[in-house]
């Protein structure tokens, strides 16, 4: 299988974007400092870094949830100032509404955008089927396991065929085995749909496994320290990828950035 050609993907361009927060004590914190970034349509970009490196800020800027202090963000040809209709977001928590059925949870974005519900029901069913949740449409979220719930959250983000899928540590709350399954499924789904993905994580392996391109970020101020292409064949299997030449090198290269910054320690110290 080849990587998708970018049929449904949106292009992202970020120019000189700075985001400054003011803390309670009146200090300015540069969450992002003059970030420049272009993302090709249909590519899978992972963004890895420790807490506070601005990766989540980058995501919420693209989601239109916060405004940049300086600079512009574009999705395709439109400047992002408010939530963009072509963007779907998956958060770390599944954020399913317990009083709605699984199907109604998936259809929430359709309802909020006041689109005709009937037009999306079959698509919602198809999406749920693709993630192995056929037959769960009329169940309620508490009846599902954590992994199943996060799958529903992904279906909800995909219901409107978003050109850009933003994922903020989507598997961070899952156990290791479930997470591995989700990594496979996400990869398969992306290869089928071909939308642009920005995937935020603090897990280096996860980033290298999934992405065409890994952005390595470090905090204070939030900057992109390394922009690494991952040219490994797909599909990449979490159990086998360690043996694929190039995988270990990419991980080492990313680790070295963190070691140089003192975020990771290179060796045991006496």
């Amino acid at each position: 299988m080849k990587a998708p050609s970018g049929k449904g993907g949106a292009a992202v361009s970020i120019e000189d974007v700075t985001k400054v927060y003011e803390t309670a004590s009146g200090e300015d914190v540069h969450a992002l400092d003059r970030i420049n970034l272009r993302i090709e349509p249909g590519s899978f970009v992972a963004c890895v870094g420790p807490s506070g490196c601005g990766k989540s800020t980058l995501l919420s800027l693209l989601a239109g949830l916060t405004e940049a202090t300086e600079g512009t963000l574009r999705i395709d040809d439109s400047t992002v100032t408010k939530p963009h209709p072509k963007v779907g977001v998956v958060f770390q928590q599944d954020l399913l509404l317990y009083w709605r059925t699984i199907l109604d949870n998936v259809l929430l974005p359709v309802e909020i955008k006041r689109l005709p519900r009937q037009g999306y029901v079959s698509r919602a069913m198809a999406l749920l089927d693709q993630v192995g949740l056929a037959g769960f449409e009329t169940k309620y979220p508490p009846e599902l396991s954590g992994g199943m719930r996060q799958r529903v959250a992904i279906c909800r983000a995909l219901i409107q065929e978003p050109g850009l899928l933003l994922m903020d540590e989507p598997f961070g709350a899952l156990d290791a085995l479930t997470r591995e399954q989700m990594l496979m499924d996400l990869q398969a789904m992306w290869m089928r749909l071909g939308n642009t993905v920005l995937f935020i994580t603090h897990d280096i392996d996860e980033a290298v496994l999934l992405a065409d391109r890994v952005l390595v970020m470090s905090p204070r101020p939030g900057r992109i320290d390394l922009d690494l292409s991952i040219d490994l064949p797909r599909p990449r299997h979490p159990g086998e990828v360690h043996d694929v030449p190039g995988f270990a090198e990419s991980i080492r290269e990313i680790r070295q950035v963190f070691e140089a910054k003192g975020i990771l320690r290179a060796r045991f110290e006496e």
Partner: protein
Amino acid sequence: MKYAATTANGTKPGTAMNTVKAGKAKKKRGESLVERHAALLLAVTILLIWEGWVRYSGISPFVLPSPLNIIRRIFTDFPLLMSHLSVTLLEVLSGYGLAIMLGIPTALLIFYSRACERAIFPLLMGIQTIPKVALAPLLVLYLGYGWAPKITLAFLISFFPIVVATTVGLQSLDKGLVNLVRSMGASEAQTFFKIRLPAALPNIFGGLKVGMSLAVIGAIIGEYVAAERGLGWLQMMANSRFDTTLNFATVVTIAGMGITLFFILGQIEKRVVHQRELAK
């Protein structure tokens, strides 16, 4: 923070499933007749002991009437009890209805306006510490002997729990949910009706239930202080005439009214609030 979210996510579905399984296991276990009707059996036993003791000891009905006599009295004086019940019920429902109609908007005001929150909320908390029944004599002084002081007392006493529960319900919403619907382009009105209100409903109903039982207390106390009708007044009359049987019959009627109102509210809650949350 993130760790807390993780465990919450990880354990919730598991515990929900466990409770479902536990429920099924309970049914399967084949409870004995005694276990299934334990509460009813205890109540009947107490009543039997009461009845037996009254008969055996020959205690005067002025002091303690027997349960059977009380039941008989409820039947013979049914029209009387019902006519007074209708008065009290109307007072309860008026005061309670007023508390809902003013309480929920007040909670919205507190929730949406910081100035209102700063101004109203501490005041509410302060007033909540005053036992509202202590205001009953004052209400009679200002509002007279008619409907007004009873309705006002029922209102005052049930207003605060409704406001507080609704406010807390709105405030305790997961911020992630707000971000989620905002990322879908939701307006504040949509956020309110799709997220805030349904998420706050379990809390709101908690407040409504507390308010309901308090409203009954408010109306009865109002009638104790000064009235010409109503179950509270009937009880005072029975007291002054040493008609202890009627006194007990009135207590049973008041309890029956309270239980019925509570049951109706519970039924509404079952329909409006999703059961999963109730099961928790």
